C-alpha cells in the first residue's frame, strides 16, 4: 500500500484551494477533479494530466465545499456567502441555486443513490436535505440541543455543523460539528439516533467506509483521526500522528486505507489493518484542505488515484496502489 506522486499543478487557483472532489466518469468522458477556492472559482481538471478543463465563476466569497452527483453529470458547490450552486458538469449550466437562510452552508454530499443532497447547515445546527429532482428542501435534521437551561450563545455556535457523510447504503447520515460531537441520523425516518463522543474540537471531515457500512472515520482539529462503529456507538480506534489539525479524510475505494490532509502541510496514508500511518507526503507548502480518492469506474478502473488540494494554491495527484 503506497502513494506515488504523479503530478502537481502549482497556482492551480489564484488563491487557497479549499475543496476537492472527484466527478465520477460518465460514458463519454473519464473522471474529473473538481476544486473550489478562495478565489471564488470552481475548476474542473482532467485526470491524469490535470489539464484545466473549465473555470466556473459565479460565487461570491470563497468556495468552501464541492460535491459531485454519483452519476457524474451534475455537481454542486457552496461558498461562504451561503449559496449552493448546482450545475451541469459538462456545460456549466446552472441547474439550481439553493439557499436556506439563516442557515449557512458548509460541506455538501450527494447520497450514493443520487436522490438527495445533504448540506451541513452551519449555525442552524442541522443538516438540510434537498431533493435532487425538484431541488426542493425536503427535510431539516436538527441536532438536539443539550439539555439544561436556556442554551447560551456559546453552545449555539459550538454546535455549528461543519461536515456531513452518507453511509455506503445511504441509510445513515453523520455530521460533525465545531464542538467535536458527531451526530448520527436515520435518514429514512429523518430521526436523530445518537452522538459519538471522543472529539472535543471541530470535526471538519468525516467519511463512511465503502465496505463496512457501520465504520465511520472522523478527522478533527485535535490532531486525531477516530474510527467509530457508528451503530454500536463505540470508538474502535484513535490514530495520532499529525502535527496539527486534521482537515480532511477520505477512505480508499477498497476500504483498506484512509488518506488525511492536515494543517501540518502533509498528506498521510493510513493502513487500517495496522492502524498506523504508512506514508507521509509533504509536497504541499501550506495546509492541506482536501483529499479525495477517485471513485472506481470509467477508463483506468484499476488504478487508484488520490488528489489533494492546499492553501498553497496547488493541486497534487498521486497514484494509490
Amino acid at each position, binding site marked *: 500500500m503506497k502513494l506515488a506522486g504523479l503530478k502537481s499543478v502549482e497556482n492551480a487557483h489564484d488563491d487557497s484551494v479549499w475543496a476537492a472532489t472527484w466527478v465520477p466518469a460518465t460514458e463519454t468522458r473519464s473522471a474529473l477533479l473538481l476544486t473550489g477556492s*478562495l478565489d471564488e472559482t470552481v475548476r474542473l481538471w482532467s485526470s491524469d494530466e490535470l489539464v484545466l478543463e473549465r473555470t466556473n465563476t459565479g460565487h461570491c466569497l470563497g468556495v468552501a465545499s464541492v460535491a459531485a452527483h454519483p452519476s457524474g453529470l451534475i455537481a454542486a458547490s457552496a461558498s461562504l456567502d451561503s449559496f449552493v450552486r448546482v450545475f451541469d458538469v459538462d456545460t456549466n449550466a446552472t441547474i439550481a441555486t439553493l439557499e436556506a437562510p*439563516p442557515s449557512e452552508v458548509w460541506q455538501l454530499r450527494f447520497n450514493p443513490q443520487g436522490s438527495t443532497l445533504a448540506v451541513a447547515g452551519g*449555525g442552524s445546527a442541522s443538516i438540510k436535505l434537498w431533493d435532487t429532482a425538484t431541488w426542493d428542501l425536503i427535510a431539516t435534521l436538527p441536532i438536539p440541543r443539550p439539555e439544561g437551561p436556556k442554551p447560551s450563545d456559546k453552545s449555539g*455556535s459550538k454546535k455549528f455543523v461543519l461536515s456531513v457523510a452518507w453511509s455506503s447504503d445511504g441509510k445513515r447520515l453523520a455530521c460533525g460539528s465545531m464542538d467535536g460531537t458527531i451526530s448520527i441520523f436515520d435518514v429514512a425516518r429523518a430521526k436523530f439516533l445518537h452522538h459519538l*463522543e471522543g472529539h472535543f474540537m471541530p470535526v471538519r471531515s468525516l467519511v463512511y467506509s465503502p465496505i463496512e457500512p457501520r465504520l465511520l472515520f472522523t478527522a478533527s482539529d485535535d*490532531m486525531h483521526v477516530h474510527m467509530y*462503529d457508528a451503530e454500536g456507538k463505540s470508538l474502535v480506534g484513535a490514530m*495520532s500522528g499529525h502535527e496539527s*489539525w486534521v482537515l480532511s479524510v477520505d477512505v480508499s475505494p477498497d476500504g483498506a486505507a484512509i488518506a488525511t490532509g492536515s494543517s501540518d502541510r502533509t498528506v498521510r496514508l493510513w493502513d487500517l489493518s495496522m492502524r498506523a500511518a504508512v506514508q507521509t507526503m509533504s509536497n504541499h507548502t*501550506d495546509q492541506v484542505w482536501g483529499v479525495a480518492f477517485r471513485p472506481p469506474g470509467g477508463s483506468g478502473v484499476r488504478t487508484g488515484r488520490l488528489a489533494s488540494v492546499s492553501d498553497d494554491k496547488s493541486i497534487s495527484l498521486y497514484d494509490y496502489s
Partner: protein
Amino acid sequence: MACLYIPVQNSEEEVRVALDQLPRDAADILDILKAEQAPLDLWLIIAREYFKQGKVEQFRQILEEGSGPEIDEYYSDVRYERIAILNALGAYYSYLGKIETKQREKEDHFILATQYYNKASRIDMHEPSTWVGKGQLLLAKGDVEQASAAFKIVLDGDRDNVPALLGQACVEFNRGRYSESLELYKRALQVHPNCPAAVRLGIGLCRYKLGQFDKARQAFERVLQLDPENVEALVALAIMDLHTNEAIGIRKGMEKMQRAFEIYPFFAMALNYLANHFFFTGQHFLVEQLTETALAVTNHGPTKSHSYYNLARSYHSKGDYEKAGLYYMASVKEINKPYEFIFPYYGLGQVQLKLGDFRSAQSNFEKVLEIYPDNCETMKALGHIYVQLGQTEKAQEFMRKATKIDPRDSQAFVELGDLLISSDAGAALDAFKTARGLLKKGGEEVPVELLNNIGVLHFERGEFELAEQSFKEALGDGIWLSFIEGKENFQEIDASDSIIQYKDLRLFQQLEESGRHVELPWNKITPLFNLARLQEQLYNPETASIMYRLILFKFPEYIDAYLRLASIAKARNNIQLSIELVHDALKVNDKCPNALSMLGELELKNDDWVKAKETFRAASDATDGKDSYATLSLGNWNYFAAIRNEKRNPKLEATHLEKAKELYTRVLLQHPANLYAANGAGVVLAEKGHFDVSKDIFTQVQEAASGNIFVQMPDVWINLAHVYFAQGNFALAVKMYQNCLRKFYHNTDSQILLYLARTHYEAEQWQDCKKTLLRAIHLTPSNYTLRFDAGVTMQKFSASTLQKEKKTADEVRSTIAELENAVRLFSHLSAASNLHFHGFDEKKIDTHVEYCKNVLDAAKPHLEAAIREEQQIRQRQEVARQVALAEEARRKAEEHRKFQLERRKQEDELKRVRQQEEHFQRVKEQWKSSTPGSKRRERSDLDDEEGGNSERRRRKGGKRRKKDKSSKTRYETEEAEADMMDDQEYPEDEDANLNYREPTSQNDQDEAEENVADPLAAAGLEDSDAEDEEAAPSSTAGRRRRAWSESDDDEPLQRPLSRENSTEPQQSDEEVREDGHKPNGNAVSDDED
C-alpha cells in the same frame, strides 16, 4: 660453661667466677673487683655478662662504679678500658633514650649518654669507638648530619671500621641515599663476614628501597636463617609478600606478619599491617585494638600516622565520620611532609566533604593532587567540591582533566556530563556518549540513568530518533515494547466511555487477567516517562497516554504522569477529563504546585475566574511564592482582570495592571532570565503606552526564545506585532503576524488572522483585509464576529471606492458586488440573531444593512456616471486621437516647410560661401601668399554654421513637445471638471456616513457588554481600543477611522490566553529535566561514599 678468672692481687691466684652464676647482688662482684684491683676489662666483661642476662641494674652499677673518679685515678694509665666502659655506658643511655617514649626522660638519657661519650673523648680524642658511639647517639637523636660527621672521622682513620660503616650506612639510609647505604653495608659484610644478621637486614632494606625486590628478599631470608626470630626481617618479608597483590602472596604475608606478631607483639609496623589486613577483611574491632597497641608502643611519627590512618579508616568505613575525621587529623599531624604519607589527606578530604566542610576538603585534596598530579579520583573529588562551591568552571576543568588522564574512566565522563548539562548540553552529551561507549567496550552494563540522560539530551536538541533509541535502550525488554510498537492495540471502548479514555487502566487489568505479566521496575519509570514525553512531542499522544497509564497502573502516586495525561486531554480540548486528572494528581499531593497551577489554568479556560485565582494563590503559597509559574499565573490573572472589566472602571483597571506589573517584576527579580515574566512586563508597559520600551523587551524576549525546541513563545511575536501596529508600522506588523501564524500555528489561528485583518484595515488594504477575514471565517465558521467584520470591510471598501476621485466602471461594478455581499452577510447575521448565535444587536446589523443599501442606491448613479464617463473618455480619446493625428499631419507639414526653408537657406549659404571662396581665390591670387590662420578661420566659420543649424533644429523639436503638453493639460482639466461634478454628489454620502457612524459607536458599547460572556473577547476589545487610540494620531484618517475601528475590531485579543498555553510546554520540559537529573543526583552521592 664460661668462667672468668679474677687475678688476686699480689698473688698467682685467681678467683674463678662462673659467668652464668654471677651473684644477684653486683656489689659482691664489685667488692672483689675493687679489692683485687682487677683489670678494667674484667669489669667490662662482667658488666656485659650482666647485660646479656638482662640484669641491667647490675650492669649499670658495675659500669658506673668502673667509671667513677676513684677508678680514673687508680687506672689513669689504662685508657682504653676506661674509654670502653664509658662508651658502654654511653651506648646504654643512647639505647635507653632511643626506646624511651617520654620526651623528658628521653632527653635526660641522651644527656647522660652525651656526658659519658664526652668523658671518653677527653681521655682520648681519637678513640674510634667513642666516635662510633657518639655517631649512634646522634643518630638516635635524629641528628643525621652530625652523626655522619662522627662516623666519617672514624672511617677516615680506619676505612674498615665495621660499627662506623654500619652507622654511616644507617645515615645514608636515613638520607634516602640507598645505593650508598647499600655499598657501606656490603663493605661491612666483607670486612666482617660473620657480623650479626642486622647487617643483612640493612642490605635487604636498601635493596627493597632500591626496588631490587628479589635481592632484598634473599637478604631478608638470609637474616631469618641466621636469626629465625628477627621480627624486622619477618615483617619486611611479609610486606613484600603482601605487595605481590596476589591471594597466595597476601596469605603468606599475613602468616609471616602473624608470626612476627607472636614473636614480638609490640612491633608497630607489624601491628599496622595486621590492622590494615583486618580492615580489608572488615574486622574493625581487631583493627582498633591493633592500632591502639601500635600507637602505644611507637613514637615514630610515620608509623603513628599510619596507625591513626588505619583507625580513621576503620571509623570512616563504619560511617562514624566525626571520629574518622579526628583520627585522620591526628594522622596528618604526625606527618611532616605530605609526600611521605598522603593517604590520610585523602581520607580527611573525603570525610570533610561528607561533613560539608568543602573548603578544608578542597585544601586536602589539593595536597593530594600536588603529590599525585594525575590522580583521577582526587580530581573528581575536587571537581565535585567545586560544584558544591558553585565554581562550575573549575569543576569542569578538573573533570575534563580527569577524563583526559584516564580516558577510560566512564564514571569520570558521567560526572563531567552531569556538570556540563546545565551549561553546555552538547559537551555533556558527548561526555555521556563516551561513558556509554567505554562501558559497552568494557562489557559492562550501561546504567539506565546514563542512557536516560543521553536520551534527554538528544530530546532537548531535537534529535528525536536518537533520543528514542536511547530511551528504548534504557528501558530494555518489557511489556512496554508491545505498546510502543502498537502490538497491543487498545480494546474497543464504548464511545460514551471515551470521556475517560485517559484514565482507563482496564487495559492493564485485562492484560494481567489474561496472564500477561505487567511489570515495571522502579528504575525504568523515568525513561518510560521520558519516552512517553517524546512520543507526545512526536505527535503520538495515544502511545504516550498508554505509557503514562502504565506508570500510573504500577505507581499511582506518580504525579507527573497524571499531569501529562491531563495535558494531553487539555490539548484535545477535553477540559472535563483534564480537570479530573489534575484532581487525581492532587489526591496524591494536594500541595503540588504544578498540579495547582495546571488546575488554575484549566479553571481559567472554563471561565471560572474566582476559582482560578484561588488555585493560583494556593500554588503560590505551596511554594512560598518561589514558584515563578504560579506568580506568573497570578500576574496574568490580574492582567486579564484589568482588561476584562466590562464597565471600564479606570481605577480598578489601573490597580489590576499595577498588581500584574508587580507580580511580573517579582518573578523577574527571582529569575532575571524568565522570558514569560519579561513578556508580561512588556505587555503591561505596552498597555500603558510605553511602546518603545515594550518593543525593546519583546524583541529581546523573541531573540531569547528562538533556539530552544521547548520554548515556544508565539505570544511575543504577536505582542511585537501589536506594538508595530500601534506605532503605525503596518507593513512590519503584517509580516510579524504572518510569520507567527506560519511558524507556530500551521496557519490555523483565526485570532491572529483577525489581527492581520485589522492591520490591513488600518492600512486601508481592503482586499487583503477581506481575504484574510474570509480565511478566518473558513477556519472558524462559527465565529460570527468575523462575518460581521467582513461585512464592514466590504462596506468600507465600497464607500472608499466611491469616494475616489477617479474610478472605472469596473471598479464601481465590483464595488456594487461587494456591497451586495455585505448586505447579504448582514442580513444573514440579522436573521441568525434570532437564534442567539452571536452577540450582535439586531438593530445595529439592520443599520448596517440599511446603510449598505443606501450606499448601493447611491452607487447606482455612480455606476451610471462611471459608465457615462467611460464613454466620454472613450469619445475624448477618439477626439484626442484625431487631434493627435491632425497635429501630426500639421507637424509634418511644418517640418516639411522648415526643411524647405532650411534647404533654401543652405543653398543661399552655399552660394555665399562659394562667392566668398571665389573672392578668396581672387585675393589669394592677388596676394600670392597664404596664412594658416586664415584657413583655420575658414573652417571654424563652417563649423559655426553647422552648429547654428543643429541648434535651430533642436529648438524646433522642443516647440513640438510643448505643444503636446498643452494639449494634454487641456484634457486633464476637462477630467478634473468631470470629477468636480462627481464630487458634488458626495456630501450626501458623507452625511449618510456620518449618520450611520453615530449609532455604530454606540452599538459598540452594547456589543462589548454583550460579549462579556467571553471575558477574553471583552479583554481583547478593550485592548484593541487602547492601541487604536495610540495609533489614531499617527495615522491620517484620525478620528473618523477610530470610530470605525471600534465598530469592527472587536477582536478578542487572546494574547494572555495564548501565553498561558505556551507556558505549559516549558513546564513539561522542566518535568523531563528534573526527572532526567534525579538519577544523576544519586550517582553523585554514591560517589561521595
